[in-house]
């Protein structure tokens, strides 16, 4: 990622949900990052890997939310900085309004309580944008209609969980 043109393309592709840049980044930097985290923060490799994953997801969220409008020139330094902040629990990046952030985080927590099939289907539909035929193929359903009904049931389940949590 050298030229400003390339950096801009990364940002655009991240916004439309192409996460390959971050996945590649993780693959290429995991070991280096773990060494850095051990030296800087005395973290074991497993904890360092988890920190890097968290930071990359946070980075992705910043891009997706529009909080990060320009990709930093040095992505690695930026990610390391995020990790540093995370460890020191002193975030300086722009945050979402508290109520919005809280609502999403609560929904994320509820989402994780769903069954794996439900999680998968909702991710396929709402993030990857698969149509019902493709989803039926992926999930092994008889046809698109079954996929639509299953997705609908999962959404209802998530909504009901949210209602129950709010009560």
């Amino acid at each position, binding site marked *: 990622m050298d030229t400003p043109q390339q950096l801009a393309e990364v940002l655009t592709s991240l916004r439309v*949900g192409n*996460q390959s840049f*971050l*996945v590649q980044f*993780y*693959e290429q930097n*995991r070991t280096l990052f773990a060494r850095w985290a051990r030296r800087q923060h005395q973290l074991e490799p497993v904890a360092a*890997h988890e920190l890097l*994953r968290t930071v*990359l*997801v946070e980075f*992705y*969220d910043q891009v*997706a*939310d529009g909080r990060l409008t320009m990709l930093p020139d040095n992505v690695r330094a930026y990610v390391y900085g995020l990790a540093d902040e995370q460890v020191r629990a002193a975030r300086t990046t722009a945050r979402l309004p508290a109520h919005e952030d809280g*609502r*999403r985080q609560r*929904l*994320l927590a509820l*989402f*994780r309580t769903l069954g794996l099939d439900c*999680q998968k289907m*909702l*991710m396929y*539909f*709402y*993030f*990857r944008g698969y149509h019902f035929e493709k989803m039926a193929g992926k999930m092994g359903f008889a046809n698109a209609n079954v996929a*639509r009904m299953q997705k*609908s049931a999962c*959404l*209802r389940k*998530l*909504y*009901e969980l*949210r*209602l129950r949590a709010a009560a």
Partner: protein
Amino acid sequence: MPLPAPDLRPYLEELERFADGQLSAAEQEAFESRLETDPALYQAYQQYEQLTADLRWVAGHETLYQRLLALDQRLDQRQLALSRVRRRQRQQQQRWGMGVAAALLALLALWLLWRPVAPSAATEWARYYEPEAGLPDSVLRDNQRPLLAEAMRYYREGQYQPALQTLSRIPATAIGQDTLTYYHGIFLLSQDGPEQIQAAQPFLRRAATQPGSPLAGRARYHLGMAYWRNQQTSAARNTLRAVSNDVKNPYQQAARRVLRSGAMKD
């Protein structure tokens, strides 16, 4: 204070069908008209839109999280497999190293067991030297020479020092000079010490050069052997060669045997 959100459940299926493009043209038109006239439906629609927007965020977030987690596991497995391969290679190298070391040790042990051992000088000497038998008792009795008899007895018993002392007490007139000199050399040589062997040589040389003495040939053999024992190889070889060429010398065969054996090396 925000108003409590209305329950979406009664509208959920319809909203979903609308949002997912599942309505027919007429149904869509009817739904859109109702949206404009039914405030409850409109509020439910707004809420549904927020829910699905949040869900899109959650799904994106979770997808990346899951992908990274899966990648992490793959990388861990790859690292584990690589370290396993490296460990196996190291073990194999160690096994090979140990095998080679064991083979070398075995070869060394075999060599130590089977290596050709050079016989020692003392062993070679004992193998080829034919000692002087000494004068027989019958001769000593006939000649009435008690001191000479006593010296011979000591000699045969292996007591060379007393034999030498007794021999020294014999007056020169009582026995031939060549006999005295010869046995003096023999008694010294028999003691088998480096100094005594060195000391024996002048006596044996003198006895060997006595013209007409019956002991000269025998003295030459013992002198040659004394040279060999003293590591004067070329002198020993020359002297013993002369003995081996002398048909009258009783030690001719003994001299030939030691010359042929190759034990006499420079």
